[in-house]
Each structure stands twice: as C-alpha cells, then as structure tokens.
C-alpha cells in the first residue's frame, strides 16, 4: 500500500509535468530530497527515477519552455567551474574508486543547481520550487519531530525512515538544514499564493517550524543547537519588537529545558568541554591534519581524501591528567576543511565565492525591495529568508561536511533564480518606460 501510494504519487507528478513542464523540475527536487526509491521495495527501487526526472526536466525545458531573455548569472558559471575542479580532482584522486562513486552523484547535483535558475522565469515558479523543497524536507522533519516527542531520540538513534545516513537522512545534515529552512517556511505564512496564508497554512507552518527545532534535539546533533542560536539572533536583529522577541525566546528556552531528554542535555554539555570530548578533539585533529595535507596537495586529494588520515590526540581524562588517543580515516567534520582537503585551495576559493556571493546578492535585493508596502515586498522578504537560511547553513557547515549538499545547492539555485528574475523584470520595466538606462544585471 505504502509502495503503491509513492508510485502513484510519482506517476501523477510525471503526468502533470507533461502539462506543466516545471512540475518535472519539482519531481526531480522531490526525488533528490526524499529518495522514494529508498522507501519502497517495489519498482521505484529498481528504476533510475532520478535520471528519468532529470532528463525529463531538461528535455521539456529545451522543447517547451520559453528561453527568451534567459540570463546566466556569474554564480552559475562558478558552479560549472566547480564541477570542472571536481572532475580534475576525481581524475587525480588519492582514492580513485571511492572518489568516482561520489563524483557520480555530485556532478549531477551541481549541474542541476546551475540549470535550475534558467527555469525560474516567474515569481510563481520560485514559490513552487521552494514549496516542493520545504514539503519534501518536511517528510523527513515531521517524522523526526514526532518520533522525538514520543521517544526522545538520541545520537544516531532517531529513525528517519532511511537508516543509511544518505543525503538529508543523516542526523547532523538534517539538523542544520531543518533550522536553515525555518525562515523560508515563515515566508510562506505571508506571501504564499499556492496555499494562501489562512489559519490552516499558518498552523501547519508553525507546527513544521516546531518540528524543525525538534530535529537537533532528536538527533542530539550539537551543530543544530548552534544553528538555533544563530537563527534566534538573526531573527531578533530583524524583529520590530526586540524586547518582546527576546523575552519570548528566553521564556520558550527555559520552558523547554525540563522536557529535553537527558541524553540531549548531557551531549550538549560536552560543547563546553571539548578537550575532554573525543569527538570534538578528533575534529580539531582532522582540521590540523587537513591544513598540513593541503601544503603538500594544494590542488586537493579528491573526494574522500580524509580516508588516509592517522590522528593522535591528547584527551583530558577529567581527573587533571591527559591520555593519548589515536584514530584514523576520520571524516572532515567541516565543509570548509572538506573543500580544502578534497578540492584544494582553488576549489575552496570558488566554493566560498559561490556562498559569499549569495549572501551579498541577497543583501542587495533585500535592501532594494525592503519597502513592506511595495509591490515587490515579497522579493525583499524572500531575499532576507534565503540569506538567513544561507547564514545558518554556513555556520552548520563549519562542523559538518556538507559542502556540496544538493539541497543547499538548490537553495543557492533559488537565490540565483530570484536574482535573475528581478533583473529581468527591471529590464522589462525599463523597456516599457522607454528608458535608455541599462538594467542592473544579476552580479553573482
């Protein structure tokens, strides 16, 4: 029954995609985030549905979509450049077989992120993309939230339907992403048009935000706690009633503490005692190893180059002494060091340019369309939501190796799409008014 429902859902989406080609793009987004092939035991798990949706989205765009005045933003070029760098490091990887396996799905995710903005020609398409991203992620987040309330979860214990730690089903990854998308969810409570924001939409959105906050608790991912803190600060800075917001946040935080599982509070307490915590000490050791590795491998070692590390750490034993601990083949535990170790200085530079460029462009758009009474208030608000989401991601990425996470690159694709859409509208408006002034292009 469960399998039949998922098959029927996907089939319906494909059929509707023939009538509205953009729905095929949404089908690809859904498949990439939810991985229905991992949730079923029949048909979907044996078909390459991701490839079918990807080819369908590209084919329908080539055949049926309007490509007049299609704009390519510099950040799309940077993403393609990053694909080239990844191809080079894969060809010269320290672990060629493993690197090739990672490359096989990473290049598709990056290529889709570069392609996505070309399809975002209307405001409704931008909204639709974000709606499908949020609802797809919600499939994992609501499951995690409900199970956290009922069982308390625990590090590596929360069952998110799929247990192989792939994509958003990995605890630390979903913790960072769940907190990052909260501003986007809240945007729908003001500017959604597919589901106009009535009491039902608001109730669902607030409940989903609550489930998002529960995810770091359920997975006991310490990164998630930092992300919640940053999101709180960013929302406080932008709030009109700062004192009220701060009071409510403190009250909510204090009220929540007694309900937190013991396993969670114990694990969060280890944030303060990193030198006695083997997990945190291992991170520092991996990062130091990566800096050394980059000196001899400035072009990077390809995907999964961390597998060659051998670490020795001094751990505080809690009784005033220290002990030596050894470890090997430990993962990067940071997107920044991941890029440096895998793609070298050039890859890190390009990746930073893509991410920081996004923050900057969203700031430009936020300021340009900041008037809450203006017709493009939705755009200013969305730019702020996407910028906040990006900042939260960049903090979470400091402690989790999610540099090339496809969901985040879709968010970046949405940013670029918003940017090029507004540039196109401004150009159209200038043309309508007969202005000689050259329209402001999308810059990054």
């Amino acid at each position: 029954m469960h399998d039949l429902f998922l098959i029927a859902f996907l089939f319906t989406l494909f059929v509707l995609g023939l009538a509205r080609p953009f729905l095929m793009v949404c089908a690809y987004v859904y498949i990439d985030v939810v991985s229905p092939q991992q949730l079923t035991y029949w048909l979907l798990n044996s078909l390459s549905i991701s490839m079918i949706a990807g080819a369908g989205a590209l084919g329908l765009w080539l055949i049926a979509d309007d490509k007049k005045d299609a704009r390519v933003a510099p950040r799309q070029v940077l993403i393609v450049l990053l694909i080239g760098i990844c191809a080079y490091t894969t060809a010269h990887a320290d672990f060629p077989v493993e690197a090739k396996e990672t490359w096989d799905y990473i290049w598709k995710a990056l290529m889709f992120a570069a392609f996505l903005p070309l399809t975002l020609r209307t405001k409704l398409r931008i909204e639709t993309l974000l709606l499908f991203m949020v609802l797809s992620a919600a499939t994992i987040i609501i499951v995690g939230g409900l199970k956290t309330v009922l069982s308390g979860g625990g590090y590596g214990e929360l069952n998110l339907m799929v247990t192989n730690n792939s994509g958003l089903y990995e605890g630390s990854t979903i913790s960072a992403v769940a907190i990052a998308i909260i501003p986007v969810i809240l945007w729908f409570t003001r500017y959604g048009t597919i589901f106009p924001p009535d009491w039902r939409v608001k109730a669902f959105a607030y409940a989903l935000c609550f489930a998002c906050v529960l995810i770091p608790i359920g997975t006991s991912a310490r990164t998630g706690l930092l992300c919640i803190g940053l999101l709180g600060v960013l929302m406080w800075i932008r709030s009109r009633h700062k004192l009220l917001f701060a009071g409510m946040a403190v009250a909510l935080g204090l009220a929540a503490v007694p309900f937190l599982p013991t396993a969670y509070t114990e694990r969060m307490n280890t944030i303060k005692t990193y030198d006695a915590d083997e997990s945190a000490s291992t991170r520092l050791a991996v990062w130091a190893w990566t800096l050394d590795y980059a000196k001899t491998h400035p072009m990077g070692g390809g995907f999964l180059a961390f597998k060659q590390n051998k670490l020795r750490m001094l751990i505080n034993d809690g009784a005033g002494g220290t002990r030596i601990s050894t470890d090997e083949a430990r993962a990067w535990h940071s997107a920044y060091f991941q890029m440096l170790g895998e793609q070298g200085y050039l890859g890190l530079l390009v990746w930073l340019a893509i991410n920081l460029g996004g923050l900057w462009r969203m700031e430009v758009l936020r300021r340009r369309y900041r008037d809450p009474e203006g017709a493009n208030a939705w755009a200013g608000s969305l730019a702020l939501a996407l910028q906040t989401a990006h900042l939260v991601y960049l903090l979470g990425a400091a402690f989790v190796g999610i540099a090339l996470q496809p969901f985040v690159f879709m968010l970046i694709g949405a940013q670029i799409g918003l940017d090029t859409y507004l540039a196109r509208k401004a150009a159209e408006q200038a043309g309508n008014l007969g202005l000689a002034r050259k329209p402001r292009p999308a810059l990054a």
Partner: protein
Amino acid sequence: MAPDALGARPLMIDNLTILLTHGLMLIAAWRLLKRPDLDREGPPIRRGIDRGRRDA
C-alpha cells in the same frame, strides 16, 4: 520513554507523514495547473519597481 517503546507506532508515523506532505504536494501541483502565471506573467506593476529602483 525509550526509543523501542514506540512499538508499532514508527510505521504509522512514517505513513501519516508521507500521506500529509505528499498530499499537499499533489494539491499544490493540481492548483498550479490552473495558474497561467506559472509559465507567463503579465506586465510588471510600476509602483513596486519604481520604488525598488529608488531604493537601490
């Protein structure tokens, strides 16, 4: 409550969540069929654009 104390409920939670989110996506897709502005928009509204340019 221990994680295993959920009993048979995990499957029910999984199925209900899938039903909810996938149902919403289907409704969204259905509504989009009736929205011509998904593929083509009318002329931009002057007031907002002008204000945006002035702010820039």
